[in-house]
């Protein structure tokens, strides 16, 4: 399966050139760019690990691409995403977020159903990957 979180998951994986253009778009808007990675892509796993602090006050995408490549060297077997943060009053949240690195194999999720009163159902989504301990899930 292919996790379709983020802004560009339905397109072929972005090239570095395409990622650079998106990063530059964020910088030109004055947003801080953040790099995060995880080996638990559960749709409600909000807090991926941060690769350093969000990068404020940069002018050019090259600095971020260097960090991304450093991150890939260490965590290239996991999901990595980039996001652009807008601190403008009234928004103060992400303006864009997209995946830039995926594990070779994406095992996906198991849907667990628990039958409760009447025909009601309790649903739980579990990533197959988390059956293994953190850090060795996509080895």
């Amino acid at each position: 399966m292919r996790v379709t979180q983020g802004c560009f998951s339905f397109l072929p994986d972005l090239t570095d050139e395409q990622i650079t253009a998106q990063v530059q778009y964020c910088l030109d808007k004055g947003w801080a760019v953040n790099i995060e990675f995880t080996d638990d892509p559960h749709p409600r796993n909000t807090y991926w690990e941060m690769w350093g602090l969000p990068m404020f006050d940069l002018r050019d995408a090259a600095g971020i691409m260097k960090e991304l490549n450093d991150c890939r060297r260490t965590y290239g077997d996991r999901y990595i995403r980039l996001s652009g943060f807008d601190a403008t009053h009234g928004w103060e949240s992400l303006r864009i977020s997209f995946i830039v690195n995926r594990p070779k194999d994406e095992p996906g999720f198991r849907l667990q159903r628990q039958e409760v009163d009447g025909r009601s159902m309790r649903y739980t989504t579990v990533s197959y990957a988390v059956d293994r301990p953190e850090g060795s899930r996509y080895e």
Partner: protein
Amino acid sequence: MSDAAAKPPVAAETPVSAIDLRKEFDAVDIAPVLEQLDRELIGLKPVKTRIREIASLLLVERIRQKMQLATTFPTLHMSFTGNPGTGKTTVAMRMAGILHKLGFVRRGHVISVTRDDLVGQYIGHTAPKTKEILKKAMGGVLFIDEAYYLYRPENERDYGQESIEILLQIMESQREDLVVILAGYGDRMEKFFQSNPGFRSRIAHHIDFPDYNDDELLFIAEQMLRDQNYSFSAQAREAFVRYIAARRQQPLFSNARSIRNALDRIRLRQANRLVSNLDQVVTSQDLMSIEPQDVLASRVFSGAPDGTRAPTGKP
């Protein structure tokens, strides 16, 4: 992005065989930057000549790339040597503008730093600091003032060395992403390069900034005053000529910056002189005019150093 043999900035699909030089010169629109430099900086003939030479070289380089005669990205790092107040920072700003217009840096901004911005206080502090600055400078020019302070041979565990190594690596591997300008006193820079040959080999252009002569400093002073709607009276002007000669002999002399500081103090004295007599009607001429006593009250004339600013302090 980090490939050393990076693509030239204007790589064409198919090489062109002939280019109209004037059209190309007009297209990159660097003439206004060069003119601005001429206007802004008094004197500095040799510096201006060097800048024009470099601009010409880069313009030709750009055309050679279009014709696919040049295939790698040129090294553009520079060193600016000279005493304080000789215009190095200003020239760096204009240089960034020229590089930007010619397509050799993408954004054209200047990040100006000193050792304190790059080197940390404890283990593990330096690399993130240096990298943070480098990220901010990407796409533009990193101007390192008094670069030799990065290297402190007397302390072999000095964290400066770590910063130097990161700088050297980025200067080589990401030279299409930023241009580094190292600046400082000529003699100290020379020693620095001797101990750090890695830097010397990565510097493509050295520019030496000579001291201003007395006439140029007077001209600068009058221009600064004019910009603020002041002027010397004839006698004050004569006194200031003597001031320049005396000031130059004293320690911590820093060319145009010393002049600016002197004028700041002269304006203070002028104001004080006016206010000390409240029973008068002042005209705009009174408010604009610098009189000899405003100049002559300076301690420079009694042989004491005027002011306490360090030579590296920014105006």
